[in-house]
């Protein structure tokens, strides 16, 4: 029998707000523990939550970017559970009336365009961070109450490749939209993954297994692959899959059963009496829609159509919004998109890998990079010299490109007298290739050209050299 997997993702994304969801405490990653807390996010009796309007706006904009319908009236609920990461013993969330409904994401999965549909996006508050030590757990409430939204996909994916492509696209859109920085190390994007397997042709879905709270895309992929294999093996052997929550052991690349307490999922949701519902008018939705930024797919199209960049370059440059914004800023100053693209994708990215993106961008600012590209465009330096110039600038942590070109004597030589001298020498010293060229083997001129380039120590302008040689040999 053939089996197929069905996968759904619940992705939690921390929004880019200055303050928390329901109180004015600062949202800051890496602050000293329990320094951004107050009676509201510590759940002191009598403290009352007040909604952060920016978070509501960001959640709705995320929805608009993903083609959701904005719920004209949404409300808040309490999800009750006992766990020290939520001091008030409930999490404020949205159960039956979330801010955003439906939606979809069009994704390129290994060259095939697929559409993955969403069920909803709801707004909620984040939980505190727990650290487990010998004999105790430690809690830092700085993260408790920060703005968190949950994007729930339909069970519409069928492979780990689908899920990975969906997550990569989702992350990209959230970054472009200014909704979230989506830094997995800072826990700003985490997913719960639901996986089930059923015989092909069977209508109802198989029993699903939930793997909770994973931030690494690579681990998510591994966990899905492991689960599909495990469940398929179970079914093939005539067994049944137990509906349960499983954890992922990244060292072994395996999922494992997590014993959950009896009734652990009875959260007893009820309407949050401390918060009023949110009404969003059609005018407000249109206002937000008009403020949406250019998305990666639109940007790729602009690069190809307006800047005449190859599809490949457009894909690489737009993969990271920071790089793409940087590229846009350079071409505003320097024009010559293909030259800029070559620099950024070549030397730029290799240096970014070596010294870090932030460091590289602070040295090779759009102004400096624009100047370097300008030197190449005006044929002051060759492409090779451009790479060397970038190396020097990065190694010196900055500098004036023109001054370095002068200091290092990197300028191309195009003036005829110097070139003619080298050309004459090359012709005199290499009678054989000269003869061959004159006999009709035009490729022999390349050898002579190489000799001239060598004599100029790479500084001769290749186009000009070719011209001088031809004049001398043909004339």
């Amino acid at each position, binding site marked *: 029998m053939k089996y197929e997997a069905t996968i759904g993702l619940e992705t939690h994304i921390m929004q880019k707000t200055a303050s928390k969801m329901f109180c004015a405490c600062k949202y800051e990653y890496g602050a000293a523990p329990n320094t951004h807390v107050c009676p509201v996010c510590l759940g002191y009796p009598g403290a009352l939550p007040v*909604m952060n309007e920016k978070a509501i706006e960001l959640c709705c904009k995320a929805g608009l970017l993903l083609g959701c319908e904005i719920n004209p009236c949404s409300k808040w609920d309490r999800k009750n559970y006992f766990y020290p990461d939520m001091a008030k013993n409930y999490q404020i969330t949205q159960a039956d009336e979330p801010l955003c409904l439906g939606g979809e994401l069009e994704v390129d999965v290994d060259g095939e365009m697929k559409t993955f549909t969403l069920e909803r996006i709801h707004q909620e508050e984040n939980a505190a961070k727990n650290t487990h030590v010998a004999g105790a757990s430690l809690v830092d*409430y700085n993260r408790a109450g920060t703005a968190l939204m949950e994007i729930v996909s339909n069970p519409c994916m069928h492979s780990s490749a689908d899920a990975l492509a969906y997550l990569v696209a989702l992350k990209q859109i959230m970054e472009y939209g200014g909704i979230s920085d989506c830094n997995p190390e800072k826990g700003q994007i985490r997913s719960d993954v639901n996986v089930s397997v059923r015989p092909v042709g069977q209508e109802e879905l198989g029993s699903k297994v939930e793997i909770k709270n994973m931030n690494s895309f690579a681990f998510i992929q591994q966990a899905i692959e492991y689960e599909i294999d495990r469940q398929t093996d179970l079914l093939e052997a005539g067994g049944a899959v137990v509906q349960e929550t499983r954890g992922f052991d990244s060292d072994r690349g395996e999922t494992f059963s997590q014993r959950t307490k009896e009734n652990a999922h009875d959260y007893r949701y009820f309407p949050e009496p401390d918060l009023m519902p949110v009404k969003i008018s059609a005018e407000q939705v249109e206002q937000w829609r008009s403020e949406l930024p250019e998305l990666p797919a639109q940007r790729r199209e602009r690069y190809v159509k307006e800047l005449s960049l190859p599809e490949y370059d457009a894909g690489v440059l737009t993969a990271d919004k920071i790089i793409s914004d940087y590229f846009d800023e350079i071409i505003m100053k320097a024009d010559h998109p293909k030259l800029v693209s070559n620099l950024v994708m070549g030397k730029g990215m290799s240096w970014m890998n070596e010294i870090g993106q932030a460091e590289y961008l602070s040295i090779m600012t759009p102004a400096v990079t624009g100047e370097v590209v300008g030197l190449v465009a005006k044929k002051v330096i060759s492409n090779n010299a451009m790479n060397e110039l970038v190396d020097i600038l990065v190694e010196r942590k900055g500098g004036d490109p023109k001054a370095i070109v002068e200091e290092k004597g990197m300028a191309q030589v195009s003036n005829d007298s110097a070139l003619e001298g080298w050309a004459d020498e090359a012709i005199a010293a290499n009678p054989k290739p000269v003869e061959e060229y004159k006999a009709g083997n035009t490729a022999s001129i390349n050898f002579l050209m190489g000799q001239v380039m060598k004599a100029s120590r790479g500084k001769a302008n290749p186009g000009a050299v070719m011209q001088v040689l031809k004049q001398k040999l043909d004339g």
Partner: protein
Amino acid sequence: MSEAKEGMDVGYVAHLARIDLTEEETALFQGQLDQVLHYVEQLDELDVGDVEPTAHAIPVYNVLRKDEVGQSLDHADVIANAPAATDGEVRVPKIIDQ
């Protein structure tokens, strides 16, 4: 709520709320809460099919605040209220069930 019709299992709800009840207490509260639920059940006699559900008794919406950072509590005060602390973090009994 469908709960009223099915009746309420006080023992189960007490467990969810982490309240320890003796058998006598459970029986006592079971009777009392059943009475309350039956009383509220009278509402089922009304046809509310045309009434829009409300999340709140008063029609107030969009109580929002600007995304501005305000004052947080002093760290020493926070820790003074904690059951125990280590390195500025609140220390609790080890959480086994993740």
